[in-house]
């Protein structure tokens, strides 16, 4: 039976070029479905991986209780100093707690493809420890800012997507001029930020305290000790989070939204593609009806015919799926976009077409191919031999 099936499938495939138009419908239809599916989820994957890469597991971020995001959080200078004295925080090379008080404010920049509509960009004022706590961040152009001066360093993502943030440019904020002196790359969400000295940020924005404190944890039980220390301090009402969890937690809504969109679009497109595939395979069976009837008359069984039609549909579907994945990869892999993050500022990220996504796309293609091939295959096997042979 297998030999028969192989033989019929071989004949079918060799005759594909002769009826290329309907076959192309399956290939293109599936390419469309898989390309759209892969591209949408590549967006979600890119966003998630950017934020997941941001946090360290051995550092904690401390926010005011119930504030959810740095933007909403604020505490005064005394609280900031108090937090740094809490247990569980590692000690730096200078003998002081390895912790950075940070002030997060928002500035507006205009996107490169826009003329006047501003987008929110995070401006992060950091203490010297802020750089030590992010070893992944390196200066890729110019130099770092000088404490006490109105100088900025700008993340790679901001540089790519927004105007007026290149080295030498001047950014105006609250009646003062800030010079961009360097660019940095961290490979994570910090690439969407501008950094400066916290004290300069405080004086310019009229804020005395800070938004958050980032602290290196002292050993595996550091987080627990820090949490209980903070809870025992009546003057403080704070949330202590592992930095990785803080950033990881910001992806949920985006993932859900894009997942929903991808789901709806894929289901509708897939239905369309199933109908198109059915159409094409019925047409293919109709064109080959005489040939199939001849084979049946020669003694070939029904199941080899079914298998050959199914194989053809699957091959075309997988071909389309691969094509679609390639299109998604070529057009969208590392395609850089930005959207609003938890802090109400832009997060720049790249689409990521991963092997897992491609595999899922191909599974969809196979399923559609199976559905599209099954009914026509049955019809082929049930063709009445005599009438088919008699047909013109």
């Amino acid at each position, binding site marked *: 039976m297998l030999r028969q099936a192989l033989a019929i499938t071989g004949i079918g495939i060799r005759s594909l070029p002769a009826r290329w138009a309907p076959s192309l419908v399956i290939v293109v239809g599936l390419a469309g479905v898989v390309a759209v599916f892969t591209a949408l989820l590549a967006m979600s994957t890119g966003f998630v991986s950017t934020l997941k890469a941001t946090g360290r597991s051995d550092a904690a971020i401390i926010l005011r209780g119930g504030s959810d995001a740095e933007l909403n959080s604020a505490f005064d200078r005394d609280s900031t100093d108090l937090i740094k004295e809490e247990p569980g925080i590692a000690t730096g090379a200078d003998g002081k707690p390895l912790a950075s008080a940070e002030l997060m404010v928002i500035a507006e920049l205009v996107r490169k493809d826009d003329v006047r509509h*501003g987008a929110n960009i995070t401006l992060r004022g950091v203490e010297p420890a802020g750089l030590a706590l992010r070893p992944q961040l390196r200066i890729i152009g110019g130099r770092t800012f000088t404490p006490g001066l109105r100088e900025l360093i700008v993340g790679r993502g901001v540089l790519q997507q927004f105007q007026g943030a290149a080295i030498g440019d001047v950014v105006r904020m609250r009646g003062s001029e800030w010079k961009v002196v360097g660019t940095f790359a961290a490979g994570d969400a910090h690439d969407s930020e501008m950094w400066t000295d916290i004290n300069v940020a405080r004086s310019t924005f009229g804020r005395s305290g800070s938004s958050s404190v980032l602290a290196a944890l002292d050993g595996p039980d550091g987080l627990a000790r820090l949490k209980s220390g903070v809870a025992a301090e009546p003057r403080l009402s704070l949330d202590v989070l592992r930095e990785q969890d803080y950033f990881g937690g910001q992806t949920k809504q985006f993932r859900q939204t894009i997942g929903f969109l991808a789901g709806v679009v894929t289901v509708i*497109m897939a239905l*369309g593609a199933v109908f198109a595939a059915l159409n094409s395979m019925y047409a293919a069976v109709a064109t080959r009806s005489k040939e199939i009837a001849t084979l049946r008359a020669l003694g070939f069984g029904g199941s080899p015919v079914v298998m050959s039609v199914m194989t053809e549909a699957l091959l075309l579907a997988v071909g389309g799926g691969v094509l679609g994945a390639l299109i998604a990869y070529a057009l969208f892999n590392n395609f850089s976009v930005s959207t609003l993050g938890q802090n109400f500022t832009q997060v720049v990220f790249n689409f990521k077409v991963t092997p897992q996504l491609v595999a899922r796309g191909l599974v969809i293609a196979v399923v559609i191919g199976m559905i599209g091939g099954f009914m026509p295959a049955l019809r082929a096997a049930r063709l009445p031999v005599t009438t088919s042979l008699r047909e013109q």
Partner: protein
Amino acid sequence: MTRSGFVIANLFRKRTRTVLTLLSVIMAFLLFGLLQSVNTIFNAGADFVGATRLFVQARVSFTSPLPISMLPKLEAVPGVARVAYQTWFGGVWQTNTPLIMFSLDPQRYRDVYPEWVMPEEQWQAFIHTRTGMIAGKQLADQYHWKVGEKIPINSNIYPQKNGSKAWIFDLVGVFDGKDEDWKKRTNLAFIQQDYFDEANQFGVKGRENFFILKLADSGRAAQVARTVDTMFENSPDETKTQTEKDFNISFVKQIGDIGLIVRWILFAVFFTLLLVVGNTMAQSVRERIPELAVLKTLGFSDGNVLGFVLAEAFALCLFGGLVGLILASMAGAMVQQATGGQFQLTVDYHVWLIGVLAIVVMSVAVGLLPALRARRLRIVDALAGR
């Protein structure tokens, strides 16, 4: 047999093929309708917002507050009829549902936004109740808030004097929009600025995210905006003044270029559709070459034959397209109902207009090549099967 009867009869000579093609077309237009309406959600620069209001925000970002001391200066700018202001409250319903909620001066806000409709006694109650709150109809319906109830709302920014972030407001009114466009935007809530200033722990007083200027004459928007921005230039509170419409556009653009993604998907969908329907048409013409030759022999002109094929393509696209758009309208309404109006997926007349346009373009694109082939047929060759 009439000509249209002839076209329809031809379509259904291969019933399976026609039905399957129709179903593909329906799916494509269902997706088209839904995606276009998503696009409309992000079309915040809609014209009904008008240009009679200017938003004044801090130049650095609207998250940086401006001092209330600006108010008299703004009121003195020629062309400004009335000034309102509002501050973002950071309202959170229950554990983590963020609300669009501002504190503001009720009377001023009412003067600047006549688009919100609410009974007079509720306006009066809002003006005179310090702990008062009013909510848009959509919001009130969604969480089943009734006028007279006490509504507990957390703020993720401002604690009260006692350190608690759980605020309680008296719902004194529910407002609606004056027309369909404004009714769709009633998913927000307002509280009294005076009460907020007094009760928040930080002693934040008189700091506003926005001043909203109602203009005496919309023609002077650009001039007024320039005057305001020049007035505060080089101060720590530099301003950026733009029309409400422009503000809305930039706000939505922050989320990202949704339009771009939608366009890519639609491109993929229609390219595929073009192929599916185009293939069906080409196939059906190929099968009927001898018949078309007979038609020509009977005296139908080349143009007539071209017309028959184009009409078939049009009938396919029109029927499939209309059904698809109707399905999209129904699906959109269902989503809207299910989310309590928070997600406005309205397939409105804009979408229908573009949809019908797409149907026409599609018909020509898929029908033209086969139709031209049918027109070119030479009777002798076609009958001889050459």
